[in-house]
């Protein structure tokens, strides 16, 4: 007997209302019920971080959260980072610094870094050190890059956002832009 609940949530600025089985993970709900397939599953036990999404601005392993737990929440996925077809500063930095190869872990790193940078900005923190970014990046696993490009990309974005005062990516990120093409 399936236990099904009706929930409402906002994903990348779009309201969704759906019936979901209580045991269904947030990751599966986002990917298969709502079509946000940019969120990837690498281990399904909370270690690799490929499935990281933001729930009410906090990074969350969506494989360890049930979909019903996101009832009433504001969720951001990788599809919500870009401004339409224009890559965000963080996304562009990942490309500039060769922070991705196969691309499977990339959405998780992007969301992890996006939350980190927004949190620092909100706290008025200064420029992070490379060691701090390494510590952050150690939350997730990448098997292709050796992480240097990821660390460099996050560091470069942090510096650029500090330089520009109100970072354009961060400002937009806080609002949560609507997904342009990858939505339901």
């Amino acid at each position, binding site marked *: 007997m399936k236990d099904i609940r009706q929930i409402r949530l906002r994903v990348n600025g779009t309201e969704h209302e759906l019936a979901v089985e209580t045991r*269904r993970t947030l990751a599966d709900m986002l990917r298969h019920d709502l079509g946000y*397939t940019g969120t990837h599953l690498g281990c399904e036990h909370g270690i690799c971080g490929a499935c990281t999404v933001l729930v009410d601005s906090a990074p969350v392993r969506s494989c360890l959260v049930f979909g019903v737990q996101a009832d009433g929440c504001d969720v951001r996925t990788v599809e919500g980072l870009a401004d339409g077809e224009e890559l965000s500063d963080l*996304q562009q930095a990942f490309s500039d610094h060769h922070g991705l190869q196969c691309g499977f872990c990339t959405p998780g790193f992007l969301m992890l870094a996006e939350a980190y940078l927004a949190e620092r900005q909100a706290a008025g923190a200064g420029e992070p050190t490379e060691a701090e970014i390494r510590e952050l990046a150690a*939350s997730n696993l990448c098997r292709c890059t050796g*992480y240097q490009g990821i660390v460099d990309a996050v560091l470069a974005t942090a510096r650029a956002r500090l330089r520009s005062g109100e970072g354009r990516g961060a400002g937009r990120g806080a609002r949560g832009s609507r997904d342009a093409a990858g939505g339901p």
Partner: protein
Amino acid sequence: MSRDARLNTRAGRWVGASVPRKEDRRMLLGRGRFVSDLTRAGMLHAAFARSPFPAAEVTGIDTSAALAMPGVTAAFTAADLGHPYLIAMLERDEFTPTRMPLLAGDQVRFAGEPVAMVLAADPYAAQDAAELVDVDWRPLDAITGIEAAQDSAARQVHDGLDGNRLVDLTMFDDPALPGIFAAAPVVIDAVFRSARVAALPLEGRACMAEWDDRDQQLVLHISTQVPHQVRSGVAQALGIPEHGVRVIAPDVGGGFGLKCVVGREEIAVADAARRLRRPVSWIEDRQENLTASFHGHEQRYRVRAGFDRDGRILGLAAEIDCDVGAYSAFPFTSAVEPLMACTELPGIYKIPAYRARGRAIATNKAPTAPYRGVSRPQLVLVMERLMEKAAAELGIGALDVRRRNMISPGEFPYTGVNGISYDEGSYRESLDLAERQVKETFRNVTPAAESGGLMTGVGYACFSERTAYGTPTMSQRRMAMTPGYDTALVRMDPSGEVIVTTGTCGHGQGHETTFAQIVADRLGVHPGQVRLRQGDTDLASYGWGTWGSRSIVIGGGAADRAAAVVARQLRQVAAHLLEASADDVELAGGSARVRGDAGSALPISELARIVHFQTHRVPEELRYGLEARASFDPPGTFSNACHAAMVTVDPGTGEIRLRRYLVVEDCGVVINPMIVDGQVSGGVAQGVGAALLERVRYGEDGQPASTTLMDYLAPTAAELCPVQITHLETASQFSETGAKGMGEGGMIGAPAAVLNAINDALRPAGISFDHVPVLPAEVCAALAGDAVAAGEPGGPGGMGGASAASAVSGEHRRGAA
């Protein structure tokens, strides 16, 4: 435009420039298309019932409870499918093939082996139902180690398998060796081991199969490095013609060799789709990936080496045992590790006399695949440890011992005792440069670390990496399916844009970008105008996929050749329209022009338009398209590198930390420096993982103990440090572009460099290790003088202890509390 302006193009060429990757945009936007993103109306989800025993007879399977579950559509056993199997063949007397059934029949040979497949409307229901498959098991003794497997009393993993040896061959056997060893001033006997490891792509295996009624074709979307070999495997296992199967690899989330073999589950899923006429999806979970896919690198080398008083090696003999698990993987076979090891052990060193015996040992563990590096991380570790040992014995600098033995400038091409011809490399130069860089850049970390009570050490690894093996080389392995060539089709469409098809199958290496750079240079267009189509057996000519550092040399070489033909066609058309000689026409910047006559430029897009839409305007021999097909099948070419690592060892906790890492590498002409650096860094990360963290453990009872990412430790950013990379460029004469393959070098050099660094750090304590990974507990045990406890000898996960060259004395234990 601004991005292009930043590119450091050499002489107006795209090759050599860090062109941004075409692949990035879709990945960054979350719009990549991986197998698990594919959905179809009415799609079923597969789950497998798997053996909980490492070895057991199956006396009965009952799927009725599973079938009774709501949402379950079907369940299949081996008998239901007619006992289909995969068989990988080597045409050698020393090789015994194994049949790997898609679903195990009357016997299971490792914990995790699939015995039944359940199909349901959603994956949660499918997994629930798979747990209800009722199997009657009669457990058997598990064979879990190289020694135990070869015991004459050991049970045979496969019937009739003497000593559980799937492969047992002596490849070289110089009769002079006993005399050489008897007379050698220094003889070193040593045993080296490397743990079983997992390739661990972040995307596990995945497939979605569907029956296409219109084309009467079974279409298999699969995360693979080798679409054509998957097609051949499906056709052979299911007894259907190859044209009845289409294999499509969409975006592939990493492979590292795990996906260059053909898995049983994917073919079983394809068979289910064919039988049910329904789309069927299977997405491997991480536990399945760690226990039931493929592993690699579990090897033991028992080596004897003789040296003269100057440190020159006189003779080398090796007994090489590879624990290959329960089955030979299709199509490479279980011989891939021992054959590579025996053939290439001498590496960059001049060995006058050589003997190598290699074995593939069957055990009740998951089968093995050609994981990144294939035996070379191990054989480089062996040779680099031997150089260090000889140096210590003789009181000569270890780098000088290497220099005295390595193939030197002026000696290329060098044909070794192993029959291999080494094309020109920069073995000596890379070592000299690395040594200089170490002196300049490593020194500054030492005082700070040592003041904190840590022991520091620097280690080197010098090696070459044979890449891009074509059939001239692969045929020596005598595989029934002998890989090596690849074929490209280059077509220019009426708008002047270019489509390239290839049988290679990139999965993170940036081939959409690098192939475009090569073709763009030939045709005088922008790389943005060149689109690569790969990973589709209906689009590309039969090809051999992406593995063995082959794609840019072989696939890229074929594309280069085909593009050269199209370029000639373009020059001829332009010459006709400009009333000039084709030899005087050059293609550059999107135009064809007569050399030295800037006013003569014709846009290439205009030539393409005329050839397609105004065909009557060109002579008959130039009509009907701008396209060419070409193949490439080189013997292979050696890239080379010198790695240097600095580590610190905490004598209190045994913690080993990587502090500095540098690579001086030579992969010939660099197509895209950014991408080459990424391959090097990523490979080094995997090699560091193998040296310090990674091991797939099995209990003595054969039960897998590394079933989650809590148990199997892959390196994170916190365990790594930046990799400083310098490129030397010795162009290959066996490559169309001068490039050499380089996908595996990072992984090949790193274990040896890190192990040598650890041993350098522990030198004051008189301790050294000859295995990887070296774990903190082993360091602590060795420092406490407990060499036996250090390596858990006897246990299947144990790698052998430390050797204490001298007693561990108090004053040597620098910084110990």
